[in-house]
């Protein structure tokens, strides 16, 4: 066991830090959460800068124009960009981390040539059409229909929780092409152009009051069969290619954020006064923060273990479920402590004077989704119990 970064890893970190130090001060202010055209412009501008500096597609193989970075370099990249406060992957999330890798693994050479360079440069934005109102945790029961009509699929149904739908050019879409087959065997994965007639996008207002996701309705929308990736009715397997990533290195940025929130909680506790002392003088609160930090540090070590395992075996292990369960609940506990600390100060989502408090109130609301999105904590626990511990299915 060795936790020391190699000289070339340290060199990579130094170069990246230098570049971030140069480029971040030149960025415009972040747009508001509901200004989707501005968000697209901001995020794709960042993607273009990454591309020009050679950091786009950090995990993509070089044959597809990516950096082909080692897992350790990817860890460093995610750690450094998050720490420096660089723009989040944003609207490029699905393209660079889901649809792109799926296209690399499963699509034809022509399909790859059509999409991968554009995704990498920030010219093409993707969204994901997987979940449905009646197919959430049980995703394979999805029912959005794709009926073959000549060389087209005619799509009717609805999708939900689609991020970036308003500004996406393409959708990685799962459709039911064989309703008679067992549920995992009748699904097809298609690349759906978002300017196709017959779709309607309705933004969903979330708990934080902005519209992070939309519902997308399909009414006999037509997509060429040529847009299919993989063979017909094999889409479940094709889709699962991307899930491995989500549970592999996918939480590194979240962990760096969690660590930062803990540090900010200390800053907040030093500023909030109760009677004659600050909240930080409260031993019980300090101790609780110590417990949270202990778990945080253990999770960071666990990420390195998972990464080392993936580097040796080539595939991310089920350890991703463990990280997901632990980090999402840890983050919620951090925001719980913040709300207790703030008491009436929590009624404001704006910072109060010199208290950096608004962020915590916002995050307390936002983090309710962490134990739901990308597989609820209950589903993750089923995965741990069944796939790792070998307990029988219910």
């Amino acid at each position, binding site marked *: *066991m060795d936790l020391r970064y190699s000289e070339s*890893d340290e060199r990579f970190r130094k170069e990246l830090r230098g570049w971030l130090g140069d480029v971040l001060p030149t960025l415009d202010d972040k747009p508001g959460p509901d200004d989707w055209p501005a968000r697209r412009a901001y995020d794709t501008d960042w993607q273009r800068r990454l591309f020009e500096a050679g950091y786009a597609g950090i995990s993509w193989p070089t044959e597809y124009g990516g950096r082909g970075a080692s897992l350790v370099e990817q860890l460093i990249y995610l750690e450094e960009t998050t720490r420096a406060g660089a723009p989040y992957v944003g609207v490029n999330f699905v393209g660079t981390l889901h649809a792109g890798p799926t296209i690399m693994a499963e699509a034809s050479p022509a399909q790859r040539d059509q999409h991968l360079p554009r995704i990498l440069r920030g010219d093409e934005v993707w969204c994901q059409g997987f979940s449905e109102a009646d197919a959430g945790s049980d995703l394979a029961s999805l029912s959005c229909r794709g009926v073959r009509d000549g060389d087209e699929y005619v799509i009717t149904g609805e999708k939900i929780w689609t991020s970036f739908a308003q500004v996406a050019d393409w959708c990685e879409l799962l459709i039911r092409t064989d309703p008679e087959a067992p549920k995992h065997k009748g699904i097809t994965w298609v690349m759906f152009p978002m300017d196709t007639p017959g779709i309607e996008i309705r933004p969903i207002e979330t708990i934080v009051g902005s519209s992070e996701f939309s519902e997308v309705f399909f009414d006999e929308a037509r997509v060429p069969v040529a847009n299919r990736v993989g063979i017909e009715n094999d889409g479940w397997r094709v889709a699962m290619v991307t899930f491995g990533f989500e549970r592999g290195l996918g939480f590194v940025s979240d962990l760096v954020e969690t660590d930062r929130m*803990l540090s900010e909680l*200390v800053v907040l506790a030093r500023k909030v006064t109760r009677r004659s002392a600050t909240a930080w003088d409260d031993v019980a609160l300090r101790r609780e923060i110590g417990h949270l930090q202990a778990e945080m540090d253990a999770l960071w070590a*666990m990420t390195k273990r998972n990464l080392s395992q993936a580097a040796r075996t080539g595939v991310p292990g089920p350890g991703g479920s463990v990280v997901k369960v632990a980090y999402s609940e840890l983050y919620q506990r951090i925001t719980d402590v913040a709300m207790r600390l703030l008491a009436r100060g929590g009624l404001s989502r704006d910072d109060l004077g010199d208290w950096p408090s608004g962020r915590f109130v916002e995050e307390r609301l936002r983090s309710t989704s962490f134990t739901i999105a990308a597989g609820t904590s209950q589903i993750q626990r089923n995965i741990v119990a069944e796939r790792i511990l070998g307990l029988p299915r219910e």
Partner: protein
Amino acid sequence: MDFELSDDQVALQDGVRSFCAGRFAIPVVRGLADVGGVDPARWHELADLGLFSLRLAEADGGAELGWADTVLAFEELGRALVPGPLVWTHLLADRVAGAAQGDVVISGLQRHDPSGLVEHPDVIGLLAVLDDDGVWGVDPATLDTQAVGSLLDPLTPVARLTGPLPQGERLGDAADAAALWMQGAALTAALELGVAEAATDLAVAYAKDRRQFGRPVGAFQALKHLMADMFVRAELARSAAYAAGVTLDDPEVGSIERAVASAKVTAGEAALGNAKTCIQVHGGMGYTWEIDAHLMLKRAYVLEASFGTRDDWADALADLVAASI
């Protein structure tokens, strides 16, 4: 960076595990309650395996291994519930003649410990005492103690000091005392990790076997989720305990105190949480003396109180974080 076990480390882990399975099977461990948890012959077998001399130089009969290796070995001792003052004896093997060979058994405590309890009073040849000025060795024959009749852990006998704790002979300075405290916490976390894993394995095996309502109880999500949480706690503890071992070996990769704090907090959570859950998963049987779950819970409490509690280390960690901001 490669945070996976090397081939040598896997071999070490396997070796200690099969030794424990052969020589410290659970009926043997239970039987050790009759001799105060330490049988001289079996203690010598631990020494012969090299558990107290792992880190010593080859010239001194050691294997010149590191802290990370030692953490792996102690994880296995914890898993097997091997009783006795393993950590203290290991830590002082380079300072006390006979400890590495298994001839001298050493337990210890902090001088200001308010409980005044001495572990394994009848078998130790030396009581180690840590204070702000250094490390001290006290001859147990000079102690005034009163036996404690009713014990938490039947394998961890204690006696209560009834007189003042003698100053003892100096074995190390203040810096040594501080270092031993952290090293002891790391190895105790390793033992706790082993207990946590043993509790998970016992609960999972029972839940696969025990049938109610026509199916294994482990098929019910209510129980599955309890056991998934056991696994999560143990994996957090493993990551932190291994990181503590690696950091002790190579302090350039991070703060030793911070790594040890994370290990002792998360391993304590894992050992106690998993032992309690193991009892719950067993239902009524979990409440019996026959099932081993109670031995795990009791050992978990013994280890939680050794080399600083979770709260002690959480306080230390909070101060470290605050100082770094």
